[in-house]
């Protein structure tokens, strides 16, 4: 089993590492290109220096994940604007937001060290530069920058290590990085993946840091050999990392996945179907519900599996419950007319949001339905996934059943089940297709007032791919072929048995073909 996880980790390393290096290097180069001139001007101007350093300091206090997340809405708004003004759409997901956030992140150490180095130079040397007849520009290029170079290089080193580390957080905005190991591993309790991601990112940071340290001493000791060695080393590392990416980025279909097991498995199933039809694809995992839908609309993602109720409540803002078939039909029509998104159809199972309790506790209190639960709620604690309490479904439950809990807690799903099992919380928001419902012997509470919509799993294609007959033909066979029991078994294989989603996807494809 561990060997399988290790082999699975190795298999995706070229893609993850390449993307990680591409992102980090681009962000660092852009950061240096902005910081260096800004620092040079700031070193001479007090009125510029203070606000520049203050701003860079503020950026540094924003948590890395939040900074990355913030660029998504900013770019989305900008994209709407440029689309209207110039007919040009900016991708709000993936590389660009990650690049901009990391660029900002890389700036402080370069700014601070460059300003400090230039201001700390012996004034006698600067006077000598003027006395031998240098213009201010010549003095900067011939004397000041070379003397400041070791300290500037030290700043670049710090920035490089920060950027490589923080780049692991770009996974949730749809940019593949070594962080995919960590996010996926955390989700599936695959600690080999988590460890693999940490070690890979750490090793990359260490190698780059050592090479830049070599450049730093090269500058300090005027050793051309060291500078050349460091330069060659950096180029080799970057080139080796990027080679596997050549030819992969363009033309490949992008398959999205949200941040839980079922989605990993289904995205692997979709990739498998496409591969059989001769369509190469890459997968983008751990995307949030809203982000993934916007990405599909924008064409940043070509296909993914969503759930009818999610679209119904979150995108269509509907609160009425016309029944499962009607919701499915109306969602498909709405997607088509509003965005040109093609609903290939229901896969054949429902993954509903349900509230779940431990069977023993539900029995003791005689709780069968959400209406029964509402009476006990004020003395109870509820756990939900990261999205749940901000979703309209939760608002609908609160409103319909006048449900108020003493305590609300958000969990990463794996830990949420643990918390319920250990008695830390009394109720959780579960997914009906989750294999762990059976494993933990959970009681699912029924919803007599239909506060929650149905959640049929539906395969969606982006407006562009909706026109692509080959694409559609490859994926159409999936419709109606996966029932609830099969999906629950598949999910459990990942959750409990620690098999990789790719491995389980192969099993699932075999069953579909039968």
């Amino acid at each position, binding site marked *: 089993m561990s060997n399988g996880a290790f082999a699975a980790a190795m298999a995706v390393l070229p893609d993850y590492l390449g993307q990680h290096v591409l992102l980090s290097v681009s962000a660092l180069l852009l950061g240096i290109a902005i910081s260096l001139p800004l620092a040079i001007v700031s070193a001479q101007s007090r009125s510029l220096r203070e606000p520049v350093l203050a701003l860079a300091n503020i950026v540094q206090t924003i948590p890395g994940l939040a900074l990355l997340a913030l660029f998504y809405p900013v770019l989305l708004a900008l994209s709407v604007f440029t689309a209207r003004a110039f007919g040009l759409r900016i991708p709000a997901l993936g590389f660009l937001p990650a690049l901009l956030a990391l660029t900002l992140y890389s700036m402080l150490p370069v700014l601070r060290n460059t300003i400090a180095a230039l201001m700390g130079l012996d004034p*006698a*040397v600067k*006077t000598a530069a003027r006395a*031998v*007849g*240098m213009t201010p520009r010549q003095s900067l290029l011939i004397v000041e920058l070379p003397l400041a170079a070791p300290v500037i290089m030290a700043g670049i080193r710090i920035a490089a290590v920060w950027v490589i580390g923080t780049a692991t957080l770009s996974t949730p905005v749809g940019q593949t990085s070594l962080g995919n190991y960590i996010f996926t591993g955390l989700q599936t309790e695959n600690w080999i993946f988590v460890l693999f991601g940490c070690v890979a990112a750490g090793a990359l940071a260490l190698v780059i840091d050592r090479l830049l340290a070599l450049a730093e001493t090269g500058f300090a000791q005027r050793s051309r050999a060291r500078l050349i060695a460091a330069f060659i080393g950096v180029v080799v590392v970057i080139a080796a990392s990027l080679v596997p990416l050549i030819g992969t980025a363009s033309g490949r279909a992008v398959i999205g996945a949200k941040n839980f097991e079922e989605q990993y498995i289904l995205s692997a199933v979709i990739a498998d179907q496409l591969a059989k039809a001769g369509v190469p694809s890459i997968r983008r995992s751990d995307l949030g519900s809203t982000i993934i839908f916007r990405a599909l609309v924008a064409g940043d993602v070509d296909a993914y599996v969503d759930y009818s109720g999610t679209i119904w409540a979150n995108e269509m803002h509907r609160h009425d419950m016309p029944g499962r078939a009607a919701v499915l039909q109306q969602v498909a029509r709405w997607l088509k007319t509003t965005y040109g998104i093609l609903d290939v159809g229901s896969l054949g199972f429902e993954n509903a949001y349900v509230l779940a309790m431990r069977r023993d506790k539900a029995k003791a209190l005689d709780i069968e339905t959400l209406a029964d639960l509402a009476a006990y709620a004020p003395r109870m604690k509820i756990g939900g996934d990261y999205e749940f309490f901000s979703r309209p479904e939760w608002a609908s439950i609160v409103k319909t059943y006048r449900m108020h809990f003493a305590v609300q807690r958000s969990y990463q799903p794996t830990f949420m089940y643990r918390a319920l099992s250990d008695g830390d919380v009394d109720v959780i928001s579960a997914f009906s297709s989750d294999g762990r419902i059976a494993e933990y012997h959970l009681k699912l509470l029924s919803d007599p007032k239909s506060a929650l919509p149905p959640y049929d799993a539906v395969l969606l294609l982006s407006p562009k791919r909706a026109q692509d007959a080959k694409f559609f033909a490859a994926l159409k066979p999936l419709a109606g072929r996966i029932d609830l029991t099969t999906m629950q078994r598949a999910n459990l294989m990942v959750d409990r048995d620690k098999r990789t989603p790719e491995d389980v996807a192969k099993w699932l494809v075999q069953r579909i073909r039968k």
Partner: protein
Amino acid sequence: MIRLEGVRKDYGAGTPAVRSLTLEIQEKEFAVLIGPSGSGKSTTLLLLNRLIEPSAGTIAIDGQNISALDPVALRRRIGFVFQGIGLFPHLTVSENIAITPRLLGWSRQEIAARVRELLELVHLAPERYGERLPKQLSGGEQQRVGVARALAARPNIMLMDEPFGALDPLVRDELGTDYRDIHDRLGLTTILVTHDMTEALLLADRIVVMRDGGIVQSGTPQQLIDAPSDDFVRHMIDSPRRRAQRLAAALNPIPAP
């Protein structure tokens, strides 16, 4: 010929660093500005190649008012030697010497030949010293490089701000003598700042004694010795003699009776 007329320099409010200075220095003259700290001698030197600008008055070199000249071009035709040596620590000896010719766009061969010639002029073997960094040289050797760098672009005028002040006495004498020789051979006009009267008496064609931003007396060493204008000048001129007497007494003590 360098001519200062009514030159004043204020640093903010308070007493000016230099007040109403009028002075003429002849071509090929070796002039030494001497005075205690704060007398304005270094400020005067810095005004001559526009490292600082005067608050009032005019400075002319060969009849040209320097405030009308491009300061960068002006500095490239005036050599400047610093008290703190002021070599560029990241450049080799050859690169340091080559800096002004390089800025002037000389060809590579011209520069290489000139660097060699200058190293020999200041008695440093080109093969041994050319590729070294300043920190690998002794203080005296560094200042020889400083002199060579100042001479690189064949200036007619050399400005020297306490150039030998930080060196030990032996090296100091040697360097002073060597430089006076270079001054004569190349036909330079040198203005050297010092607070050491011995050095002034040994090197100068003319000594300009300064105090509180003004000139107290200006003349040949002989004129100053023969007719010091006041007690201050007399006291300064006498200090080498007093030291020599004390030295003689220390070396030949009067035997006890």
